[in-house]
């Protein structure tokens, strides 16, 4: 049986979509207009340098005024026994994966919102509660959100978290790239605290260069792949690692942007409201003809 990989499917899918939506393939471009290369900042996560001290988790909570246990409790490494995900109580978390070989150290990987160049959440949100800022940050606006959770359905990284236990004003919680801090020239809290500088903050384009140089310099240390350079049209946060990315919880994703297909269908169906109006006119015509025929029938 010819076994096709799931990824191949989505490639076919993306190609097909251009035809079915009746639009030109230029609509499915790699970057949305929200992405401005000159201004886009990013973070390069070098997982080979991470030791899993989880100070980023602590700093994140402090920076966002979220309740946190004392700093000492973060030394507890038993939390790595299970795979965690960012949720409404922690916008970033670190998971630990086994090392490449028996005698190598476990690999610690920090997870948070990737701040996609073409964010699915921004495209999906029914009320535009998500916004992609020129510096790459994707933020959420609680004054608009209606709590439909479509952003969670759309996100390819399963990042937005919802406060399911709240009956009134439940929030969508996700990393905001410390927007309030970067606005005043500060570094994101996690970047600032990281003892090993696993997280390098800088211009996204520059970070991509640095990442490739590092791979070139240490070909034995790194997998030749900068996760987030092209995935779903590129992300602000990118990863380097010594082990295949899917084994470190970084999913195998296509290069096409997450909202590309659905946006082209939407825009195809509603191109200047022509298709709906045309349908209206046709139906009206049919109705008119049938009515006249009926009337002439009865007159006879």
């Amino acid at each position, binding site marked *: *049986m010819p076994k*096709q990989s*799931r*990824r191949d*499917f*989505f490639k*076919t899918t*993306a190609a*097909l*979509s251009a035809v*079915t939506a009746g639009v030109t393939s230029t609509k499915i471009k790699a970057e949305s207009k929200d992405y401005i290369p000159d201004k886009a900042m990013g973070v390069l996560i070098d997982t080979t340098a991470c030791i899993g001290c989880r100070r980023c988790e602590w700093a994140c909570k402090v920076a966002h005024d979220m309740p946190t246990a004392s700093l000492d409790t973060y030394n507890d490494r038993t939390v790595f026994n299970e*795979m965690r*995900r960012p*949720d409404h109580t922690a916008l970033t978390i670190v998971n630990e994966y086994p090392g490449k070989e028996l005698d190598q150290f476990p690999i610690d990987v920090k997870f948070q919102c990737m701040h996609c160049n073409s964010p*699915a959440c921004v*495209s*999906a*949100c*029914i*009320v*535009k*509660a998500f916004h992609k800022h020129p510096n790459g940050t994707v933020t959420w606006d609680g004054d608009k*959100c*209606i*709590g*439909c*959770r*479509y952003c*969670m*359905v*759309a996100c390819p990284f*399963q990042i937005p*978290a*919802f*406060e*399911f*236990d*709240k*009956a009134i*004003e*439940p929030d969508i919680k996700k990393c905001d790239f410390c927007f309030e801090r970067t606005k005043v020239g500060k570094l994101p809290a996690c970047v600032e605290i990281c003892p090993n500088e696993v997280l390098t903050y800088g211009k996204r384009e520059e970070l991509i260069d640095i990442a490739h140089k590092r791979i070139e310099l240490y070909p034995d240390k790194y997998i030749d792949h900068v996760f987030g350079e092209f995935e779903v049209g590129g992300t602000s946060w990118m990863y380097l690692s010594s082990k295949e990315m899917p084994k470190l919880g970084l*999913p195998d*994703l*296509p290069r096409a942007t*997450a*909202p590309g*297909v*659905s946006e082209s*269908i*939407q*825009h195809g*169906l509603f191109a200047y409201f022509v298709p709906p109006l045309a349908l*209206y006119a046709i*139906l009206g015509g*049919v*109705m008119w003809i*049938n*009515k006249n*025929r*009926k009337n002439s029938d009865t007159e006879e």
Partner: protein
Amino acid sequence: MEEHLKPMPIKRKFITPGVLVLIIIAALGMTALLLRYIFGIGFVTNLSNQYPWGIWIGLDVALGVALAAGGFTTAALGHILHKDKYHAIVRPALLTAALGYTFVAVSVMTDLGRWYYIWHPLIMWNGNSALFEVGICVMIYLTVLYIEFLPIVTERFIGRVNLPGFLSAFNKSIDKLLRFLDRILDKTMFVFIIAGVVLSCLHQSSLGTLMIISGQKMHPLWQTPVLPLLFLLSAISVGFPMVIFESIISSRSFKLKPETDILKGLADIIGPLLAIYLAFKIGDMVIRKSFVYLMEINTVSVLFTIELVVGIIVPLRMFFSRTMTKSIPGLFIASSLVILGVLLNRLNNFVVAYTPPYATGPYIPSVGEILVTLGFVALEVLIYRAAVMIFPVISQPKPAESVSKYSVKGV
């Protein structure tokens, strides 16, 4: 034949043993619903950050919209194509659609974390969002449905406005208002009828676009860029089976003679519609070569096969068989299968096919979620029963004495 039939309120006892069961189910559902509004969504449902949407969206909303498609398909058949023969079923279908969409709206509100902001999409637009399109269309269509239903209300109450107590002072002015509305609507109804069909086509398909953005999270058996087309085609093909299903049930329930002739006429249309839907579904599968996933046996492939075989192919064969479409049980079974197929399709699309990248387990709806869903269905049936007893919806043999348009005028 139709001159002997006239829509009239049905005079029967409201409470029957079956109705009592429905009331109990509805009460349980409303209790669960109350808990959701007091303690939050997490208290009642099994939804999580992994599975943000469950059966409240997959069944209550998506299936609700699909099964209410009878409203626009019969409107198109009866009014736009002007097949007068089918006028008798337009009103029940309209009532079902109006009720269905009302419950869709209520379900959406139940599922919204911040339900009190449900009006936000009206002023905060996002043209890129399929959900925005669905939301706006459903809101407008719901309004259109109520407008389409208004003539039934005016027909019932013109000349019979009889408010109790001090409100009786308004009797006259309300009567005048109703007559005014009736006159206006009579002239403008075609605008709303066409709008209803257009809006339905738009949001039935956009409902399919909804899940496309989930990309790889959705199983390739269902994830396809033609999802909107498949949703529209399945909605159109489930519209008439739903009308048949309902008509047979209500005629049994109210001990009326089923309108065999009309139903058979509908059945003849269903065959080709189902065939088109099947062709697109198979064609999509062949083009994307997604059939390879059917070669291995697991929950996903089994459910897809059931959806395809039991939900489309079997009823398709039945609707093309003369002996089947002639008999009421045959029609009923075939229609039920189509409905089941669409039910399964919506459930598959929104729940079964959805596998988040960091899933730790499957999503299984909680008792609370199921109770709310069943509660809404029960409530809908009860309101339908009440409505057909109040309003002239279901056509019955016309009593000889009534002649004028407003049969109860001056009573």
